[in-house]
């Protein structure tokens, strides 16, 4: 580490990405071995689909009209559970101390955690989309490419704030309650933008019609990730 402190520039950047990568790799490895989150989250998604079906009844048209909202409601509920747990493992065996003692810029840790959460959320979303397509017989295949763009931008927005707040609320009592209470109101723009864009795409409108939503999402993502990078070291202290 001292070597990269001496010669800034390329090596500092590569050391930064390397540290972010190590965090991501560590989280993915834990997930692969323990399968703590993914299995339960997938089952949770399936249950959500049943719940939506029971709540709205068998009317196919009504279900089809509600699909964009339900889809994002599913992502957000799964996200609340998945993201909220992302720092829980760090509380054990003094891992938190280890993170704090990591040399260099702490925002690399945030970046690694954010990437890990994006991977987890993307996996959940792919499964949910497929399940929606199968159970509600909605054609999600035709607008797949533009939909993937909306999903991707929305996921970054959700995960960027979620990762930051998860790190914070891990240390607080009433964590399970505080995390959604903090995250949900902040995520209103992301929810509005993604649901509106998804709705337009499912109605067969071209991507250009939802360009303003995509710009808003991209802008929001940029702001959230920047705030996360800048403030994460203050969160990690505690």
């Amino acid at each position: 580490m001292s070597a990269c402190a001496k010669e800034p520039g390329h090596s500092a950047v590569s050391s930064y990405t390397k540290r972010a990568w190590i965090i991501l790799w560590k989280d993915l490895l834990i997930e692969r071995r323990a399968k703590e989150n993914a299995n339960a989250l997938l089952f949770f998604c399936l249950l959500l689909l049943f719940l939506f079906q029971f709540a709205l009844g068998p009317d196919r048209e009504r279900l089809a009209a509600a699909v964009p909202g339900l889809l994002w409601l599913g992502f957000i509920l799964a996200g609340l559970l998945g993201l909220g747990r992302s720092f829980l493992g760090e509380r054990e065996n003094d891992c938190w101390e280890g993170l704090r003692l990591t040399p260099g810029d702490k925002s690399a840790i945030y970046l690694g955690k954010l990437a890990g959460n994006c991977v987890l959320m993307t996996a959940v979303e792919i499964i949910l989309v497929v399940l929606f397509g199968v159970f509600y017989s909605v054609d999600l295949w035709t607008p797949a490419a533009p939909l993937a763009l909306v999903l991707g931008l929305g996921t970054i927005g959700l995960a960027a704030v979620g990762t930051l707040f998860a790190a914070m609320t891990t240390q607080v009592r009433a964590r399970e309650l505080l995390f959604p209470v903090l995250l949900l109101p902040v995520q209103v723009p992301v929810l509005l933008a993604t649901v509106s864009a998804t709705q337009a795409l499912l109605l067969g409108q071209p991507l250009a019609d939802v360009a303003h939503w995509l710009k808003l999402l991209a802008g929001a993502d940029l702001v959230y990730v920047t705030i996360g990078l800048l403030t994460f070291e203050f969160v990690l202290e505690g």
Partner: protein
Amino acid sequence: MTRALGWLTVLGLVAGLVAGFGYAPREAVQGNVQRIMYLHVPAVLTAYLAFGLVLAGSIGYLATRRPGWDRLAGAAGEIGVLFTGLTIVSGSIWGKPTWGTWWTWDARLTSTAVLFCVYVGYLLLRSLIEDPDARARYAAVVGILGAVNIPIVHFSVKWWRALHQPSTILGPERSPIDPAIGLALFVNWVAFTLLFAYFLARRMEIARLEEQT
């Protein structure tokens, strides 16, 4: 000093009442109901001022680590939530006779409600952490994110739904407001800002005394 500010506030609020109910003319279309505006508009302007101070206090704390900045942010957050609540309630009472409904998912109403929820969350976070240092740091992060999020919420909700009249005072053209109504509004705005300053000074003083014990 604070006491003098308190009496000045009382004077301002009395002047505001006189200006709102006595001096300002009856509005032509809505009648006396429109006078709720003298509470509604100053309340929302004060709320924005308060959330601006939350942002300033949050950045100030993270930069300097002085507890005074945190007390400013915390006090401004509480008063901001109070005034946002006042805005929503007064708007609701105004909306019933003029729009025929207590609540509608119009753009501005929605974004004000979202703002309210964000800062209630901010206060909840503060109330759940005992360690003053951790509380100040976490609250500052939420305070910054909440403030930066205000324009994003504004645009998203605006594109989502656009019943509330557009802003007349802060708009680019010359305001079409009757000068007497404008003056009454101005007096009430000054009175509310004084009230805010008084609450803020008192609340920060209480927070300082709490930290000493």
